[in-house]
């Protein structure tokens, strides 16, 4: 087949996603430059007001807050998920299928209910506090709810499978004879891990980071419920503005700010890891 003929194969996909997602995206861009009336209806009048508001110092702190949250979420899911993916890939095929199935299963249950599940566990009158008090380890309930850390745990929990699956794909095709060779040459386990395993599975790490970081910016109800609404993230702000805030143009501008934030961080990340990933995920 000639290249142009092969290129032709990709055209339907480009059109399909390009149309259905690209057009909405362009509409959001257009919306961010429009005004609204007192009822919240869109008025077709050009303005830069929304963008001026986005760079307000208070709102920039919301960006920073979300960035921190998303980065920490990606880091936690990586630290927890990488070993899980690695160990799972070493299991016999049957157990591996079982392990992957068990990892996916909780995510068939509504994320709202699982968030309530965390509240049942961590609340003042919750399961963990009751158990600890019954054991006599603590005298009064440990306050675990409504903190930044609580939101972080909840968000990481929701996005964990994306990281595990991405890393698993990389770890699984890792050539084990390379590890054997490394051991034979006298390298320690850790040295082998950092010099061979990690570089070879970097595409999976980059992929997982991407798949966790982006949704972590927007998951609003987890931080509302577990964080007790005690701080503001981009997801919450956009949600409020688009609904009761009656300001869809400003919500659009913030959404694009969120998109820009995601792309900047990802671009940085891809650049840093590009040399090592070779035929990487996104070049």
């Amino acid at each position, binding site marked *: 087949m000639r290249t142009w003929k092969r290129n032709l194969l990709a055209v339907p996909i480009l059109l399909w996603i390009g149309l259905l997602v690209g057009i909405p995206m362009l509409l959001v861009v257009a919306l961010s430059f429009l005004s609204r009336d007192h009822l919240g209806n869109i008025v077709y009048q050009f303005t830069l007001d929304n963008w001026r508001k986005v760079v307000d110092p208070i709102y920039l702190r919301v960006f920073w807050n979300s960035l921190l949250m998303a980065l920490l979420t990606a880091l936690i899911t990586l630290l927890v998920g990488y070993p899980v993916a690695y160990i799972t890939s070493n299991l016999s095929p049957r157990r591996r299928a079982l392990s992957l199935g068990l990892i996916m299963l909780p995510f068939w249950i509504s994320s709202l209910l699982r968030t309530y599940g965390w509240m049942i566990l961590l609340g003042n009158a919750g399961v963990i506090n009751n158990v600890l008090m019954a054991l006599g380890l603590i005298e009064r309930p440990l306050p675990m709810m409504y903190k930044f850390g609580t939101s972080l745990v909840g968000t990481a929990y929701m996005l964990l499978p994306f990281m595990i699956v991405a890393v698993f794909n990389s770890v699984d095709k890792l050539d084990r004879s390379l590890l054997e060779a490394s051991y034979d040459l006298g390298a320690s386990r850790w040295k082998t891990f950092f010099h061979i395993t990690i570089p070879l599975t970097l595409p999976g790490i980059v992929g997982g980071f991407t798949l966790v970081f982006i949704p972590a910016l927007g998951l609003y109800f987890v931080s509302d419920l577990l964080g007790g609404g005690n701080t503001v993230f981009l997801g919450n702000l956009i949600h*409020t503005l688009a609904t009761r805030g009656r300001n869809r143009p400003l919500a659009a501008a913030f959404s694009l700010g969120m998109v820009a934030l995601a792309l900047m961080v990802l671009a940085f990340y891809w650049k840093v890891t590009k040399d090592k990933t070779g035929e990487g995920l996104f070049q």
Partner: protein
Amino acid sequence: MKRTSAVLFTVVVLVLAVSAVMSAAEITLMTWGGDFIPRVIIEEFEQETGIRVNYKEVTSNEDMQSLLEANPDQYDLLVTTDYMVDILRQNGMLEVLDKSKLPNYANINPLYLGKYYDPDSEYAIPYAVSISLLLVNHEEVEKLGAKPITTYSDLWQPELRNKVVVVDWSVEIMGIVLKSLGYDYNETDPEKVAQAREKLFALKPNIVRFETNTPEDSLINGEAVVGFMYSNQAVKGNAADPRLQPVFPTEGMPIFIDCWVMSKEAPNKDGAYQFLDFIMRPEIAARIADITKFTTPNKAAEPYLPDYYRNNPMLNLPDEVAANTSFYIGVDKVLEEYEHIYVEFKLR
């Protein structure tokens, strides 16, 4: 073989015919899910009239607006909050209701008619009334060494550190502060707003949680001793733990009315009128109120209400409480500024 296909053909034709008949007699409602419109009531209506009811569930007033404006000919009836009635009315989405088709309309308490969102009572029928109030665990407040809570101003007591739960909306929280300063909701005077901003920031240490949907839970499990919430939530909190008692702040309270409205392009207006008249029957309205725990605007329903309901001041609002409530009118003028102050407040 031929026979089977003949039978199959007949079945298909029959099914199509039946479904055509059914779709001719069906109406589509759109509002919040759960038992906001109790299913038992809907089923009774279906049995009585043979009209099938589709119940489109959404999560917010704004979702209803988007869906209705996209497809006004696919929805017959909506239940939506006062401010959204106002928006939909001004956008020309709503049908003027023909009262001659609604004999039971006379049952509606005139107290809840002619409000800002529908000054001439043409478009909306009030369905569920709620106010915001304080739910207080007086015992625990005393234990903390704070003085009894009767007003919004009492929420600022340093003894209540991390013990207050409030609904999560800028306009309402600013409303508490403005009222505690003796001002009106949605104040725009920069000096008064600046004053309210400072006072708002002073409240932060006392708030343990912002929660719109189940704030009563925080009082039930003891993380909070005071909550500012909607009356239907306070009713649930009080039912779960009788120590939780309502306090109607003397400075005044906000009121919300969820109303039935009809799409201008409703596909089955006759069916919709039948449904509206059905749910305005006194005994039906009383049962709805019992299930949903909202205040019913149906005056004729009062004799049918259970005792607990009639004796509960959060459900059967005393006149002086009802007189001390007001709507958040003119929200659009303050939304942006209040939201900005609110974000700054939360980031502290």
